[in-house]
């Protein structure tokens, strides 16, 4: 059986797709009776506490620089955070330091406006070139000298220091680490929240311990906990397809272990039928 599967390498991906699709259809038909659990809601609680500390009519900067490849993992969490900020009456301004982030920011701004968000409370600051150098320049200035902004964001011309909080949606190029190194060292009093994909968690989590980040959402379960905490149930990932996918993945790992550990797996050894 295992040998037959090994002879058709497309079978495992096809099985994974079929199982995930079937579980998604079943989950969609049966409702959300199975949900992603999180035994440790501390990270989501920290983010909510930081949002609670915002003043009325706060001005929040969203540093939008996710990688396009991994953005879908955190998209639901980012959207839950954005809608929560708008719900709390905050004004949000988007800025990007990578071209990829610029694409995501433009799409999210357009989606927010199309979804009925008050266009006067959402500002697109666009793309700032120069990576680290651009970030440092942004601490004291946005836009060209003398640039004008809408009345609700008049203070934004004074740069990042004029904002009440920053939400960093990070990726591999520009992420929370860069923000901490270039911005938090210059504006230490401004709270910085971060949403990053799982693979960045080991790099970013130490900044929570030092207090340089006020909150971090870096795994699917943290994002789901935060989203359900702020009442955005739609943002939760479908648990049944995830479970089904994990079972298939376990099967793949089991097969790999079988192939590696079986006694006749010596490299170069040929099967009897191959010799014939």
């Amino acid at each position, binding site marked *: 059986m295992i040998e037959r599967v090994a002879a058709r390498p497309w079978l495992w991906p096809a099985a994974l797709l079929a199982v995930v699709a079937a579980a998604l259809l079943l989950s969609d038909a049966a409702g959300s009776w199975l949900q992603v659990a999180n035994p440790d809601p501390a990270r989501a609680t920290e983010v909510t506490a930081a949002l609670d500390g915002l003043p009325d009519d706060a001005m929040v900067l969203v540093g939008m620089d996710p990688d396009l490849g991994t953005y*879908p993992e955190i998209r639901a969490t980012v959207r839950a955070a954005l809608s929560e900020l708008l719900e709390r009456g905050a004004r949000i301004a988007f800025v990007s330091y990578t071209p990829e982030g610029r694409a995501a920011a433009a799409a999210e701004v357009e989606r927010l406006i199309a979804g009925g968000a008050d266009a006067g409370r959402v500002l697109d600051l666009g793309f700032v070139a120069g990576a680290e150098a651009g970030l440092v320049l942004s601490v004291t200035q946005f836009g*060209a000298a003398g640039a004008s902004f809408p009345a609700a964001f008049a203070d934004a011309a004074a740069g990042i220091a004029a904002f009440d909080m920053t939400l960093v949606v990070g990726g591999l190029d520009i992420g929370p680490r860069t923000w901490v190194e270039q911005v*938090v060292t210059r504006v230490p009093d401004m709270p910085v929240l971060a949403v990053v994909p799982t693979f960045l968690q080991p790099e970013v989590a130490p900044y929570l311990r030092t207090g340089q980040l006020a909150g971090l959402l870096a795994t699917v379960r943290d994002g789901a906990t935060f989203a359900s905490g702020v009442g955005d149930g739609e943002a939760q990932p479908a648990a049944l397809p995830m479970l089904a996918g994990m079972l298939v*993945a376990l099967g793949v790992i089991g097969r790999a272990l079988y192939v590696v550990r079986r006694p006749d797996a010596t490299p170069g050894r040929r099967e009897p039928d191959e010799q014939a």
Partner: protein
Amino acid sequence: MNGFAGTDAAGTAATWVAAAVTVGVWSYFAGGARIFRLAQYLLAGLATGYLVVVSVREVLVPRLLLPLAADPGGVPLSWLGLALVALLVAGRWLPPLAASVPVSLLVAATAAFALGGAVVGTLLPQLGATVLPASAAGADLASALLGLAITGLVLFTFLHGVRRGRVAAAAAGAGQWLLLGGIGGWLGFLLVSRLALLLDRVRFLLGDWLGIVR
């Protein structure tokens, strides 16, 4: 639903193209290497075109050319910037020394910002938080001792070329299992992460494209 493409003609076309490319990429598993390669070329071409548009529309025109056109004498630094851009673009036909000036400036400035930020923003604060426990008693001390013990056991695993006694061999075995446990836990996180990405694509196909799921 990813919510990016609208319901108008452009949105519908974008959804169909995205769905076709998604299926094309997946066809690699069934031996469709040509379609996969076509999708790769498409991505590379679109990314290059997009970068050019962003560079021209959001950097060169508003930050360099417009200020120069509005007040040619008032922004001397922009003239210097324009000269450096010209050197970079024409570098292929210029002596190597001239072409290396903008590249050197670029590398030096990036390194200076990155190095300074890494020392002040990461190295010193992380050393402060790691070397000294917040308090020398209770949970912090226990965590520090536990951390040292685990680190020591894992290091034993990599002790090669040294004769091991029974205790050292047992420690190395424990370290190996701790290492495997850590890697396994991390693999679990990454598995969920990658499944979330796959699920997003399947949901896109079944929801945004075919309209079967919400």
